[in-house]
Protein backbone atom coordinates (compact mmCIF):
# COMPACT_ATOMS: atom_id res chain seq x y z
CA UNK A 1 0.00 0.00 0.00
CA UNK A 2 1.40 3.32 -0.99
CA UNK A 3 0.03 6.84 -0.72
CA UNK A 4 0.26 9.45 -3.45
CA UNK A 5 2.38 12.53 -2.87
CA UNK A 6 -0.85 14.53 -2.58
CA UNK A 7 -1.97 12.34 0.35
CA UNK A 8 1.42 12.73 2.01
CA UNK A 9 1.37 16.49 1.45
CA UNK A 10 -2.04 16.80 3.13
CA UNK A 11 -0.97 14.41 5.88
CA UNK A 12 2.16 16.41 6.65
CA UNK A 13 0.61 19.85 6.18
CA UNK A 14 -3.12 19.44 6.65
CA UNK A 15 -5.31 22.46 5.97
CA UNK A 16 -7.92 23.80 8.42
CA UNK A 17 -6.92 21.77 11.46
CA UNK A 18 -8.50 22.53 14.79
CA UNK A 19 -11.79 23.55 16.30
CA UNK A 20 -13.68 26.76 15.44
CA UNK A 21 -14.53 28.74 18.54
CA UNK A 22 -17.47 30.48 16.92
CA UNK A 23 -18.76 27.33 15.22
CA UNK A 24 -22.49 27.09 14.61
CA UNK A 25 -22.33 23.68 12.91
CA UNK A 26 -20.51 20.68 14.32
CA UNK A 27 -20.53 17.12 13.06
CA UNK A 28 -18.67 14.04 14.22
CA UNK A 29 -18.64 10.72 12.39
CA UNK A 30 -16.90 7.36 12.71
CA UNK A 31 -15.94 5.65 15.92
CA UNK A 32 -12.82 4.80 17.84
CA UNK A 33 -13.48 1.08 17.51
CA UNK A 34 -12.86 1.23 13.76
CA UNK A 35 -9.96 3.59 14.22
CA UNK A 36 -11.43 6.66 12.50
CA UNK A 37 -13.23 9.65 13.96
CA UNK A 38 -13.71 12.90 12.07
CA UNK A 39 -15.07 16.04 13.65
CA UNK A 40 -15.81 19.10 11.58
CA UNK A 41 -16.79 22.50 12.91
CA UNK A 42 -18.09 25.23 10.62
CA UNK A 43 -19.12 28.84 10.85
CA UNK A 44 -22.06 29.31 8.52
CA UNK A 45 -23.44 32.73 7.61
CA UNK A 46 -26.00 33.62 4.92
CA UNK A 47 -26.04 30.00 3.80
CA UNK A 48 -22.30 30.02 3.14
CA UNK A 49 -19.58 28.06 4.94
CA UNK A 50 -17.41 31.00 5.93
CA UNK A 51 -14.91 28.96 7.92
CA UNK A 52 -14.22 25.35 8.76
CA UNK A 53 -11.88 23.29 10.90
CA UNK A 54 -11.42 19.55 11.40
CA UNK A 55 -10.06 17.20 14.00
CA UNK A 56 -9.39 13.61 13.03
CA UNK A 57 -8.36 10.49 14.89
CA UNK A 58 -7.22 8.08 12.22
CA UNK A 59 -4.66 7.01 9.69
CA UNK A 60 -2.79 9.10 7.16
CA UNK A 61 -5.61 8.82 4.63
CA UNK A 62 -8.20 9.87 7.20
CA UNK A 63 -6.23 13.02 7.96
CA UNK A 64 -5.59 13.78 4.27
CA UNK A 65 -9.23 13.26 3.24
CA UNK A 66 -10.40 15.50 6.09
CA UNK A 67 -8.00 18.19 4.95
CA UNK A 68 -9.14 18.01 1.31
CA UNK A 69 -12.81 17.90 2.26
CA UNK A 70 -12.52 21.09 4.30
CA UNK A 71 -10.81 22.80 1.33
CA UNK A 72 -13.58 21.64 -0.99
CA UNK A 73 -16.43 23.13 1.04
CA UNK A 74 -14.87 26.28 2.44
CA UNK A 75 -16.58 29.35 0.98
CA UNK A 76 -19.28 27.23 -0.63
CA UNK A 77 -23.02 27.50 -0.13
CA UNK A 78 -24.61 24.71 1.88
CA UNK A 79 -26.22 23.34 -1.29
CA UNK A 80 -22.85 23.30 -3.07
CA UNK A 81 -21.16 21.70 -0.06
CA UNK A 82 -23.68 18.89 -0.03
CA UNK A 83 -22.81 18.14 -3.66
CA UNK A 84 -19.19 17.39 -2.73
CA UNK A 85 -18.63 13.67 -3.03
CA UNK A 86 -16.02 11.28 -1.76
CA UNK A 87 -15.03 10.73 -5.40
CA UNK A 88 -13.96 14.38 -5.61
CA UNK A 89 -11.95 13.95 -2.43
CA UNK A 90 -10.23 10.91 -3.93
CA UNK A 91 -9.51 12.76 -7.18
CA UNK A 92 -8.00 15.71 -5.32
CA UNK A 93 -5.67 13.27 -3.61
CA UNK A 94 -4.62 11.62 -6.86
CA UNK A 95 -6.23 8.37 -5.73
CA UNK A 96 -6.45 6.32 -2.55
CA UNK A 97 -5.58 2.68 -1.85
CA UNK A 98 -8.72 0.49 -1.96
CA UNK A 99 -8.64 -0.18 1.77
CA UNK A 100 -8.69 3.58 2.39
CA UNK A 101 -11.73 4.46 0.29
CA UNK A 102 -13.84 4.45 3.45
CA UNK A 103 -11.83 7.44 4.74
CA UNK A 104 -13.12 9.55 1.83
CA UNK A 105 -16.66 8.37 2.55
CA UNK A 106 -16.22 9.39 6.15
CA UNK A 107 -15.01 12.86 5.09
CA UNK A 108 -18.12 13.35 2.94
CA UNK A 109 -20.27 12.17 5.83
CA UNK A 110 -18.57 14.56 8.25
CA UNK A 111 -19.57 17.50 6.05
CA UNK A 112 -23.15 16.24 5.93
CA UNK A 113 -23.14 15.70 9.68
CA UNK A 114 -22.03 19.27 10.38
CA UNK A 115 -24.55 20.78 7.96
CA UNK A 116 -27.24 18.53 9.36
CA UNK A 117 -26.42 19.82 12.83
CA UNK A 118 -26.79 23.39 11.52
CA UNK A 119 -30.14 22.57 9.91
CA UNK A 120 -31.42 21.02 13.10
CA UNK A 121 -30.54 24.00 15.26
CA UNK A 122 -31.74 26.62 12.78
CA UNK A 123 -34.77 24.74 11.53
CA UNK A 124 -33.67 25.05 7.90
CA UNK A 125 -34.65 22.21 5.60
CA UNK A 126 -32.18 21.14 2.95
CA UNK A 127 -32.60 18.43 0.35
CA UNK A 128 -29.63 16.15 -0.31
CA UNK A 129 -28.60 15.68 3.31
CA UNK A 130 -27.28 12.19 3.94
CA UNK A 131 -27.57 10.39 7.19
CA UNK A 132 -24.26 10.10 8.89
CA UNK A 133 -22.13 7.21 10.04
CA UNK A 134 -23.89 4.74 12.27
CA UNK A 135 -20.64 3.10 13.25
CA UNK A 136 -20.97 0.33 10.70
CA UNK A 137 -17.55 0.23 9.06
CA UNK A 138 -18.48 -2.46 6.58
CA UNK A 139 -21.18 -0.16 5.18
CA UNK A 140 -18.67 2.25 3.63
CA UNK A 141 -16.25 -0.35 2.35
CA UNK A 142 -15.66 -0.07 -1.36
CA UNK A 143 -18.22 2.68 -1.87
CA UNK A 144 -16.97 5.00 -4.53
Amino acid at each position, binding site marked *: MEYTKEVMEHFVNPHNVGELENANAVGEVGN*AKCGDIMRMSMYIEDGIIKDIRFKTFG*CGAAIATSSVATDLVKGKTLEEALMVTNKQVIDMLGGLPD*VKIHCSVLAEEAIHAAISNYCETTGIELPGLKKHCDGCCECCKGEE
Partner: protein
Amino acid sequence: MKGQIYFDHAATTAVKPEVIAKMLPYFAVDYANPSSVYSISRTARHAVEESRETIAQCIGADKDEIYFTSGGTEADNWAIRGSAYANKNKGNHIITTEFEHHAVLHTCKQLEKEGFEVTYIKPDSEGIIHTSDIEKAITDKTILITIMFANNEIGTIQPIYEIGKLAKEKGILFHTDAVQAVGAVPINVKEMNIDMLSMSAHKFYGPKGIGALYVRKGVRPQVFMQGGAQEKNRRAGTENVPGIVGFAAALFDACMHTEENALKLGQMRDYLITEVMNKIPYVKLNGHISKRLPNNANFSFEFIEGEALLLSLDLEGIAASSGSACTSGSLDPSHVLLSIGLPHEIAHGSLRITLGDDNTYYQIDYLVEKLITIVDRLRKMSPLYHEN
Protein backbone atom coordinates in the same frame (compact mmCIF):
# COMPACT_ATOMS: atom_id res chain seq x y z
CA MET B 1 17.87 0.98 3.49
CA LYS B 2 20.42 3.77 3.61
CA GLY B 3 19.65 6.55 6.03
CA GLN B 4 16.99 4.50 7.77
CA ILE B 5 16.96 3.70 11.44
CA TYR B 6 15.57 0.20 11.63
CA PHE B 7 13.50 -0.70 14.70
CA ASP B 8 11.59 -3.65 13.24
CA HIS B 9 13.82 -6.63 13.94
CA ALA B 10 10.84 -8.82 14.84
CA ALA B 11 9.68 -8.44 11.23
CA THR B 12 13.02 -9.45 9.79
CA THR B 13 16.72 -8.76 10.11
CA ALA B 14 19.56 -7.98 7.73
CA VAL B 15 21.70 -10.98 6.86
CA LYS B 16 25.10 -10.62 8.50
CA PRO B 17 28.00 -10.22 6.05
CA GLU B 18 29.83 -13.21 7.56
CA VAL B 19 26.68 -15.29 7.05
CA ILE B 20 26.44 -14.20 3.42
CA ALA B 21 30.11 -15.09 2.97
CA LYS B 22 29.45 -18.62 4.19
CA MET B 23 26.44 -18.96 1.88
CA LEU B 24 28.06 -17.66 -1.29
CA PRO B 25 30.02 -20.77 -2.39
CA TYR B 26 26.81 -22.80 -2.47
CA PHE B 27 25.20 -20.69 -5.19
CA ALA B 28 27.59 -21.18 -8.08
CA VAL B 29 30.60 -23.20 -6.96
CA ASP B 30 29.40 -26.00 -4.70
CA TYR B 31 25.94 -25.87 -6.19
CA ALA B 32 25.42 -29.58 -6.75
CA ASN B 33 22.25 -31.28 -5.60
CA PRO B 34 23.09 -32.88 -2.25
CA SER B 35 21.06 -35.96 -3.17
CA SER B 36 23.15 -36.82 -6.24
CA VAL B 37 25.71 -39.59 -6.30
CA TYR B 38 28.71 -37.91 -7.89
CA SER B 39 31.53 -36.60 -5.81
CA ILE B 40 30.81 -32.87 -6.14
CA SER B 41 27.41 -33.32 -4.52
CA ARG B 42 29.13 -34.58 -1.40
CA THR B 43 30.34 -31.07 -0.57
CA ALA B 44 26.76 -29.84 -0.60
CA ARG B 45 25.54 -32.87 1.39
CA HIS B 46 28.30 -32.34 3.92
CA ALA B 47 27.33 -28.66 4.29
CA VAL B 48 23.69 -29.56 4.87
CA GLU B 49 24.48 -32.20 7.47
CA GLU B 50 27.04 -30.06 9.27
CA SER B 51 24.48 -27.25 9.41
CA ARG B 52 21.84 -29.61 10.76
CA GLU B 53 24.25 -30.64 13.53
CA THR B 54 24.98 -27.00 14.45
CA ILE B 55 21.29 -26.09 14.56
CA ALA B 56 20.46 -29.16 16.65
CA GLN B 57 23.15 -28.30 19.17
CA CYS B 58 21.86 -24.73 19.52
CA ILE B 59 18.48 -25.95 20.79
CA GLY B 60 19.62 -29.07 22.63
CA ALA B 61 18.29 -31.47 20.00
CA ASP B 62 19.83 -34.39 18.12
CA LYS B 63 20.91 -33.92 14.54
CA ASP B 64 18.30 -36.29 13.13
CA GLU B 65 15.50 -34.35 14.81
CA ILE B 66 15.91 -31.26 12.60
CA TYR B 67 13.86 -31.06 9.39
CA PHE B 68 14.44 -28.13 7.07
CA THR B 69 11.42 -26.23 5.79
CA SER B 70 10.82 -23.07 3.77
CA GLY B 71 10.42 -21.11 7.00
CA GLY B 72 8.45 -20.71 10.20
CA THR B 73 5.05 -20.71 8.52
CA GLU B 74 5.61 -24.06 6.84
CA ALA B 75 7.02 -25.50 10.06
CA ASP B 76 3.89 -24.38 11.96
CA ASN B 77 1.55 -25.71 9.29
CA TRP B 78 3.33 -29.03 9.15
CA ALA B 79 3.57 -29.51 12.92
CA ILE B 80 -0.08 -28.72 13.53
CA ARG B 81 -1.81 -30.28 10.53
CA GLY B 82 0.60 -33.19 10.51
CA SER B 83 0.03 -33.97 14.18
CA ALA B 84 -3.71 -33.49 13.97
CA TYR B 85 -4.07 -35.99 11.14
CA ALA B 86 -1.46 -38.41 12.48
CA ASN B 87 -3.39 -38.63 15.77
CA LYS B 88 -6.99 -38.35 14.71
CA ASN B 89 -7.68 -41.90 15.83
CA LYS B 90 -6.82 -40.74 19.38
CA GLY B 91 -8.88 -37.57 19.41
CA ASN B 92 -9.75 -34.36 17.65
CA HIS B 93 -9.02 -31.64 20.19
CA ILE B 94 -6.26 -29.07 19.93
CA ILE B 95 -5.31 -26.42 22.49
CA THR B 96 -3.72 -23.17 21.40
CA THR B 97 -3.94 -19.50 22.34
CA GLU B 98 -5.84 -16.47 21.10
CA PHE B 99 -2.68 -14.56 20.32
CA GLU B 100 -0.69 -16.99 18.20
CA HIS B 101 0.86 -15.93 14.92
CA HIS B 102 -1.53 -16.32 11.99
CA ALA B 103 0.53 -19.27 10.74
CA VAL B 104 -0.79 -21.15 13.77
CA LEU B 105 -4.19 -19.48 14.16
CA HIS B 106 -5.27 -19.86 10.55
CA THR B 107 -4.07 -23.47 10.49
CA CYS B 108 -6.19 -24.17 13.55
CA LYS B 109 -9.20 -22.36 12.05
CA GLN B 110 -8.88 -24.49 8.93
CA LEU B 111 -8.68 -27.67 11.03
CA GLU B 112 -11.90 -26.62 12.77
CA LYS B 113 -13.57 -26.58 9.35
CA GLU B 114 -12.22 -30.08 8.80
CA GLY B 115 -13.83 -31.41 11.96
CA PHE B 116 -11.22 -30.79 14.64
CA GLU B 117 -12.06 -28.89 17.81
CA VAL B 118 -9.82 -26.10 18.99
CA THR B 119 -9.67 -24.32 22.35
CA TYR B 120 -8.11 -20.86 22.21
CA ILE B 121 -6.65 -19.95 25.60
CA LYS B 122 -6.80 -16.29 26.51
CA PRO B 123 -3.60 -14.71 27.82
CA ASP B 124 -3.78 -12.52 30.92
CA SER B 125 -3.70 -8.73 30.62
CA GLU B 126 0.09 -8.81 30.61
CA GLY B 127 0.23 -11.28 27.74
CA ILE B 128 1.11 -14.43 29.67
CA ILE B 129 -0.64 -17.79 29.25
CA HIS B 130 -1.40 -19.59 32.49
CA THR B 131 -0.54 -23.28 32.54
CA SER B 132 -3.55 -23.88 34.79
CA ASP B 133 -5.82 -22.63 32.00
CA ILE B 134 -4.29 -25.13 29.63
CA GLU B 135 -4.71 -27.89 32.17
CA LYS B 136 -8.41 -27.04 32.55
CA ALA B 137 -8.88 -27.17 28.78
CA ILE B 138 -7.44 -30.67 28.40
CA THR B 139 -9.97 -33.37 27.58
CA ASP B 140 -9.52 -37.06 26.81
CA LYS B 141 -9.73 -36.03 23.15
CA THR B 142 -6.81 -33.56 23.31
CA ILE B 143 -4.06 -34.58 20.91
CA LEU B 144 -1.98 -31.43 20.59
CA ILE B 145 -1.01 -28.34 22.57
CA THR B 146 0.52 -25.59 20.44
CA ILE B 147 1.66 -22.48 22.30
CA MET B 148 4.07 -19.86 21.02
CA PHE B 149 7.38 -19.50 22.85
CA ALA B 150 7.37 -15.71 22.63
CA ASN B 151 4.72 -13.45 21.17
CA ASN B 152 5.69 -11.63 18.00
CA GLU B 153 3.95 -8.36 18.82
CA ILE B 154 4.30 -7.84 22.54
CA GLY B 155 7.31 -10.10 23.02
CA THR B 156 5.95 -11.88 26.09
CA ILE B 157 7.69 -15.16 26.91
CA GLN B 158 5.39 -18.03 27.83
CA PRO B 159 5.98 -20.59 30.62
CA ILE B 160 7.20 -23.17 28.11
CA TYR B 161 8.98 -25.35 30.66
CA GLU B 162 5.77 -25.72 32.73
CA ILE B 163 3.60 -26.29 29.66
CA GLY B 164 6.05 -28.94 28.41
CA LYS B 165 5.95 -30.66 31.77
CA LEU B 166 2.16 -30.65 31.80
CA ALA B 167 1.95 -31.98 28.23
CA LYS B 168 4.40 -34.76 29.06
CA GLU B 169 2.46 -35.79 32.18
CA LYS B 170 -0.76 -35.91 30.19
CA GLY B 171 0.84 -37.66 27.23
CA ILE B 172 -0.15 -34.89 24.79
CA LEU B 173 2.05 -33.64 21.98
CA PHE B 174 3.49 -30.19 22.54
CA HIS B 175 4.46 -27.88 19.69
CA THR B 176 5.84 -24.39 20.11
CA ASP B 177 6.19 -21.68 17.49
CA ALA B 178 9.57 -20.37 18.61
CA VAL B 179 10.19 -18.16 15.58
CA GLN B 180 10.68 -15.06 17.74
CA ALA B 181 12.54 -16.81 20.54
CA VAL B 182 15.19 -18.91 18.82
CA GLY B 183 18.52 -17.15 19.01
CA ALA B 184 17.13 -14.54 21.41
CA VAL B 185 16.67 -16.63 24.56
CA PRO B 186 18.21 -19.94 25.65
CA ILE B 187 16.21 -22.96 24.47
CA ASN B 188 16.69 -26.60 25.30
CA VAL B 189 14.01 -28.80 23.75
CA LYS B 190 14.88 -31.80 25.92
CA GLU B 191 14.76 -29.96 29.25
CA MET B 192 11.63 -28.12 28.18
CA ASN B 193 9.86 -31.29 26.99
CA ILE B 194 9.14 -29.79 23.60
CA ASP B 195 7.99 -32.31 20.99
CA MET B 196 8.04 -29.96 18.02
CA LEU B 197 9.51 -26.49 17.59
CA SER B 198 9.30 -24.10 14.63
CA MET B 199 12.11 -21.74 13.70
CA SER B 200 12.93 -19.27 10.97
CA ALA B 201 16.42 -18.05 10.01
CA HIS B 202 15.61 -14.49 8.95
CA LYS B 203 14.68 -13.51 12.49
CA PHE B 204 18.28 -13.88 13.69
CA TYR B 205 20.33 -12.35 10.87
CA GLY B 206 20.01 -15.36 8.60
CA PRO B 207 18.42 -15.55 5.14
CA LYS B 208 14.69 -15.56 4.35
CA GLY B 209 13.00 -18.64 2.94
CA ILE B 210 14.62 -21.16 5.25
CA GLY B 211 13.49 -22.54 8.56
CA ALA B 212 13.14 -25.83 10.33
CA LEU B 213 10.89 -27.96 12.40
CA TYR B 214 12.44 -29.81 15.28
CA VAL B 215 10.59 -33.11 15.71
CA ARG B 216 11.42 -35.23 18.72
CA LYS B 217 12.41 -38.81 17.94
CA GLY B 218 9.35 -41.00 17.95
CA VAL B 219 6.97 -38.16 17.06
CA ARG B 220 5.66 -38.53 13.54
CA PRO B 221 3.53 -35.75 12.12
CA GLN B 222 1.98 -36.74 8.80
CA VAL B 223 4.05 -35.83 5.77
CA PHE B 224 3.05 -32.38 4.59
CA MET B 225 5.17 -31.85 1.48
CA GLN B 226 4.97 -34.79 -0.90
CA GLY B 227 7.72 -35.58 -3.37
CA GLY B 228 11.29 -36.83 -3.20
CA ALA B 229 13.04 -38.63 -0.40
CA GLN B 230 14.72 -35.60 1.14
CA GLU B 231 14.71 -35.11 4.93
CA LYS B 232 14.35 -38.85 5.49
CA ASN B 233 11.19 -39.00 3.38
CA ARG B 234 9.45 -36.53 5.64
CA ARG B 235 9.83 -33.25 3.80
CA ALA B 236 10.27 -33.43 0.08
CA GLY B 237 12.07 -30.87 -2.09
CA THR B 238 15.68 -30.21 -3.00
CA GLU B 239 17.45 -28.72 -0.03
CA ASN B 240 18.00 -24.96 -0.03
CA VAL B 241 21.72 -25.47 0.53
CA PRO B 242 22.87 -21.82 0.74
CA GLY B 243 19.87 -21.06 2.94
CA ILE B 244 20.61 -23.97 5.26
CA VAL B 245 24.27 -22.96 5.53
CA GLY B 246 23.26 -19.35 6.27
CA PHE B 247 20.67 -20.53 8.81
CA ALA B 248 23.27 -22.53 10.72
CA ALA B 249 25.91 -19.79 10.60
CA ALA B 250 23.44 -17.17 11.87
CA LEU B 251 22.04 -19.39 14.60
CA PHE B 252 25.48 -20.46 15.76
CA ASP B 253 26.46 -16.83 16.13
CA ALA B 254 23.23 -15.97 17.96
CA CYS B 255 23.59 -18.94 20.32
CA MET B 256 27.21 -18.15 21.13
CA HIS B 257 26.17 -14.65 22.18
CA THR B 258 22.65 -15.14 23.55
CA GLU B 259 23.39 -13.88 27.05
CA GLU B 260 25.55 -10.99 26.01
CA ASN B 261 23.06 -9.87 23.33
CA ALA B 262 20.12 -10.23 25.69
CA LEU B 263 21.87 -8.10 28.28
CA LYS B 264 22.86 -5.42 25.79
CA LEU B 265 19.48 -5.25 24.03
CA GLY B 266 17.57 -5.57 27.29
CA GLN B 267 19.34 -2.55 28.76
CA MET B 268 18.74 -0.53 25.63
CA ARG B 269 15.09 -1.61 25.58
CA ASP B 270 14.63 -0.66 29.25
CA TYR B 271 16.19 2.72 28.54
CA LEU B 272 13.73 3.22 25.67
CA ILE B 273 10.77 2.22 27.84
CA THR B 274 11.83 4.57 30.65
CA GLU B 275 12.38 7.46 28.26
CA VAL B 276 9.05 7.02 26.50
CA MET B 277 7.07 6.53 29.70
CA ASN B 278 8.71 9.54 31.35
CA LYS B 279 8.57 11.94 28.45
CA ILE B 280 5.22 11.21 26.82
CA PRO B 281 1.91 11.33 28.71
CA TYR B 282 -0.97 8.87 28.18
CA VAL B 283 1.19 5.98 27.07
CA LYS B 284 0.91 2.34 28.06
CA LEU B 285 3.47 -0.44 27.79
CA ASN B 286 1.81 -3.54 26.36
CA GLY B 287 2.94 -6.91 27.66
CA HIS B 288 4.69 -8.01 30.84
CA ILE B 289 7.46 -5.68 31.95
CA SER B 290 10.13 -8.38 32.41
CA LYS B 291 8.82 -11.65 30.95
CA ARG B 292 9.44 -10.44 27.43
CA LEU B 293 12.01 -10.72 24.67
CA PRO B 294 15.01 -8.53 25.42
CA ASN B 295 14.56 -6.52 22.23
CA ASN B 296 10.80 -5.87 22.34
CA ALA B 297 8.92 -2.78 23.45
CA ASN B 298 5.27 -2.28 22.54
CA PHE B 299 3.49 0.94 23.44
CA SER B 300 0.00 2.29 23.05
CA PHE B 301 -0.32 6.04 22.65
CA GLU B 302 -3.80 7.14 23.58
CA PHE B 303 -5.89 9.36 21.28
CA ILE B 304 -3.87 8.65 18.14
CA GLU B 305 -3.82 6.02 15.45
CA GLY B 306 -0.83 3.79 14.73
CA GLU B 307 -0.58 4.14 10.98
CA ALA B 308 -0.39 7.92 11.19
CA LEU B 309 2.36 7.42 13.76
CA LEU B 310 4.29 5.01 11.51
CA LEU B 311 3.97 7.31 8.49
CA SER B 312 5.29 10.21 10.54
CA LEU B 313 8.19 8.13 11.87
CA ASP B 314 8.97 6.97 8.34
CA LEU B 315 9.22 10.60 7.21
CA GLU B 316 11.90 10.99 9.89
CA GLY B 317 13.75 7.93 8.61
CA ILE B 318 12.52 5.57 11.31
CA ALA B 319 11.11 2.11 10.51
CA ALA B 320 8.80 0.54 13.10
CA SER B 321 5.57 -1.41 13.25
CA SER B 322 2.05 -1.13 14.66
CA GLY B 323 -0.89 -3.35 15.50
CA SER B 324 -3.24 -0.76 14.06
CA ALA B 325 -5.95 -2.01 11.71
CA CYS B 326 -4.94 0.55 9.14
CA THR B 327 -1.54 -1.04 8.67
CA SER B 328 -3.04 -4.42 7.90
CA GLY B 329 -5.85 -3.30 5.65
CA SER B 330 -8.43 -4.89 7.90
CA LEU B 331 -10.93 -3.13 10.13
CA ASP B 332 -9.85 -4.73 13.35
CA PRO B 333 -6.67 -3.89 15.18
CA SER B 334 -4.18 -6.57 16.17
CA HIS B 335 -5.73 -9.77 17.55
CA VAL B 336 -2.80 -9.90 19.98
CA LEU B 337 -3.61 -6.54 21.56
CA LEU B 338 -7.32 -7.36 21.69
CA SER B 339 -6.54 -10.72 23.32
CA ILE B 340 -4.82 -8.99 26.26
CA GLY B 341 -7.97 -6.92 26.75
CA LEU B 342 -6.98 -3.63 25.14
CA PRO B 343 -9.96 -1.58 23.93
CA HIS B 344 -10.01 -1.10 20.14
CA GLU B 345 -9.08 2.58 20.27
CA ILE B 346 -6.00 1.88 22.41
CA ALA B 347 -4.99 -1.07 20.22
CA HIS B 348 -5.21 1.18 17.14
CA GLY B 349 -2.58 3.45 18.68
CA SER B 350 0.10 0.85 19.21
CA LEU B 351 3.76 1.03 18.25
CA ARG B 352 6.13 -1.93 18.27
CA ILE B 353 9.84 -1.23 18.53
CA THR B 354 12.09 -4.27 18.19
CA LEU B 355 15.77 -3.63 18.64
CA GLY B 356 18.72 -5.34 17.04
CA ASP B 357 22.47 -5.43 16.62
CA ASP B 358 22.59 -2.29 14.56
CA ASN B 359 20.74 -0.02 17.01
CA THR B 360 22.46 2.51 19.25
CA TYR B 361 21.51 4.68 22.22
CA TYR B 362 21.87 7.67 19.94
CA GLN B 363 19.14 6.20 17.72
CA ILE B 364 16.90 5.64 20.74
CA ASP B 365 17.33 9.27 21.76
CA TYR B 366 16.48 10.33 18.21
CA LEU B 367 13.40 8.09 18.21
CA VAL B 368 12.16 9.46 21.54
CA GLU B 369 12.77 13.05 20.43
CA LYS B 370 10.77 12.48 17.22
CA LEU B 371 8.05 10.55 19.06
CA ILE B 372 7.47 13.44 21.44
CA THR B 373 6.85 15.84 18.52
CA ILE B 374 4.85 13.40 16.39
CA VAL B 375 2.59 12.19 19.20
CA ASP B 376 1.96 15.80 20.21
CA ARG B 377 1.13 16.84 16.63
CA LEU B 378 -1.25 13.93 16.07
CA ARG B 379 -2.94 14.45 19.42
CA LYS B 380 -3.54 18.10 18.62
CA MET B 381 -5.36 16.89 15.51
CA SER B 382 -7.34 14.27 17.41
CA PRO B 383 -10.94 14.89 18.50
CA LEU B 384 -10.39 12.41 21.35
CA TYR B 385 -7.68 14.48 22.97
CA HIS B 386 -8.45 17.43 25.20
CA GLU B 387 -5.55 19.44 26.50
CA ASN B 388 -5.90 20.58 30.07
